[in-house]
């Protein structure tokens, strides 16, 4: 009887969690075995969607592009945010003000970031004017060869400040006594970073690596706005392809199969994370 009160408090919140988080996961797996064109009813077709998936060239290109994004963004974001974190750590004045400005791109909708960067990248835009000032040839930033590095750069611009705060926070938690001991042992600053600070940064760097990897798999809106997956399929990502499949070609069952594979990947990543560092969820992602 006493616990009834608690259930009453929990009911509204978990009604929504079950309806919009838990049921859809089960639902997506169920739908992945159907053919469903929105106007008709879903029809059971067995594992056909999955058979199609492994042979789908565009899906494989999207997977490759997503992995390419990860390969570029993981090392570069870790480096830039580590450097910015060190800068904040070394600063003596105005740290909070600088940190607030660095955080700023994170609060702007990614669609808006993408729109602004699309303009910066345009063939006659500001970046090309800058190149001209230095007598450099014009670059087509969103061309087949450059599109993934260009979009990555926009994401580095957006996320470095936010991620650096995690590393900065970890730097703050290094006990002063350890740094003093390093000083007493006459370590130079390179040695201090290499042998004292860097090893202590392992947990936060590992956490960020997972965060960034999952974020790379979630790239959607920025590609949608900047290139729509093009030119050709040069910047098509897994989520952009899922969206195309479902809402441009109205193959919801096939889109569900893609989501299901994706969900398994995500769950696998969490599982690895739990095994390696235990506890704590990774939340937040790009769109």
């Amino acid at each position, binding site marked *: 009887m006493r*616990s009834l009160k*608690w259930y009453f408090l*929990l009911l*509204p*919140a978990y009604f*929504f*969690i079950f*309806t*919009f*988080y*838990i049921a*859809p*996961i089960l*639902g*997506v797996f169920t*739908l992945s075995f159907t053919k469903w064109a*929105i106007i008709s009813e879903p029809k059971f077709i067995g594992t056909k969607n999955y058979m199609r998936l492994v042979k789908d060239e565009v899906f494989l290109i999207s997977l490759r592009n997503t992995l390419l994004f990860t390969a570029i963004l993981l090392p570069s974001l870790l480096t830039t945010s580590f450097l*910015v974190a060190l800068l*904040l750590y070394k600063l003596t*004045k*105005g740290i*909070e003000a600088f*940190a*607030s400005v*660095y*955080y700023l791109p994170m*609060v*702007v*909708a*990614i*669609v*808006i970031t993408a*729109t*602004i*960067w699309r*303009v*910066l990248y*345009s063939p006659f*835009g*500001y970046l*090309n*004017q800058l190149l001209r000032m230095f007598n450099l040839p014009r670059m087509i930033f969103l061309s087949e060869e450059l599109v993934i590095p260009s979009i990555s750069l926009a994401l580095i*611009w957006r996320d470095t400040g936010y991620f650096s705060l*995690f590393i900065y*926070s*970890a730097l*703050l*938690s290094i006990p002063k006594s350890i740094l003093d001991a390093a000083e007493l042992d006459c370590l130079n600053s390179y040695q201090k970073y290499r042998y004292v600070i860097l090893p202590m940064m392992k947990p936060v760097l590992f956490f960020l690596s997972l965060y960034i990897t999952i974020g790379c798999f979630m790239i959607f*809106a920025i590609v949608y706005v900047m290139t729509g997956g093009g030119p050709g399929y040069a910047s098509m990502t897994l989520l952009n392809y899922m*969206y195309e499949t479902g809402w441009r070609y109205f193959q919801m069952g096939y*889109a*569900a199969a893609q*989501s299901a594979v994706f*969900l398994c990947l995500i769950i696998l990543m*969490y599982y690895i994370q739990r095994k390696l560092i235990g506890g704590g*969820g*990774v*939340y937040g*992602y790009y*769109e």
Partner: protein
Amino acid sequence: MDIMSKRGKLGAFTLWLIAVVIVILVLIPFLCALRISLAYAGTTYVPFTAPITFDNFKTLLFNTLFPRWMVNSAIISIAVAITNTFFASMAGYALARGKFKGNNLLLTLTVFSMGIPYHLTIVFNFLLMYKLHLTNTLLSVILPLAVDPFAIFLARQFILTIPPSYDEAAKLDGCGELGVIFKIILPMSKPLLLILFVTEFMNAWNNFIIPLVMISKSDMKTVTVGIADFSYATLNVNWGVIMAGSLLGSLPTIALFALLSKRFIKSFFVGGVKG
């Protein structure tokens, strides 16, 4: 000694200079957007010395659906902020204080849901809204965002920091269960409620995939979907108008952040944030 402190000062100045350069790098894209939005041309490049006009803002506000999208986004975001603040803090309180069967299971479920991106449940949620005949209504965006598992988790963690001895003391003074909630927990949770409201408002305002999928009627769209539409749908793309929309569209979240930036970054300054 003198030389050392001089070197120290020089070093500090260099670092400060680098920090300022990064500030400029962060702000430049916004300044470019502002420059384009204040120009006649509507092109992707406008020299910083070109004459200034507010024509694009006028066009945006009087000749496009943009004001309507702002209203839609505002309704959705405020509704989502309210439901989250209300329901998530209730559930968070129950998870933090409640002794009932399944407490741990619900917590695990919450943390698990926190990791599920909207993109992967959207196919089913779309089916659900479609079957309920709710697509093309604001409700179809509000409902999936109404309770964020992260908000529940945040509320639980916060309420755990309120010592249970306060509850006990209040009960000894003759407070009932409701008295404890209204006299102890709620007044002490004000920072929590504020941060829940603001983060969930921003979350809803910036969301893209849900309104993109749920809404196809132009006048029901949100700011994010509208801006994305702008650059594709129109034949003669006027970048001045689009940049004006981008700036106005990010104003609410930037303003909230500017007001509360200390709170946003505070948790990082304590040291040892794990995530």
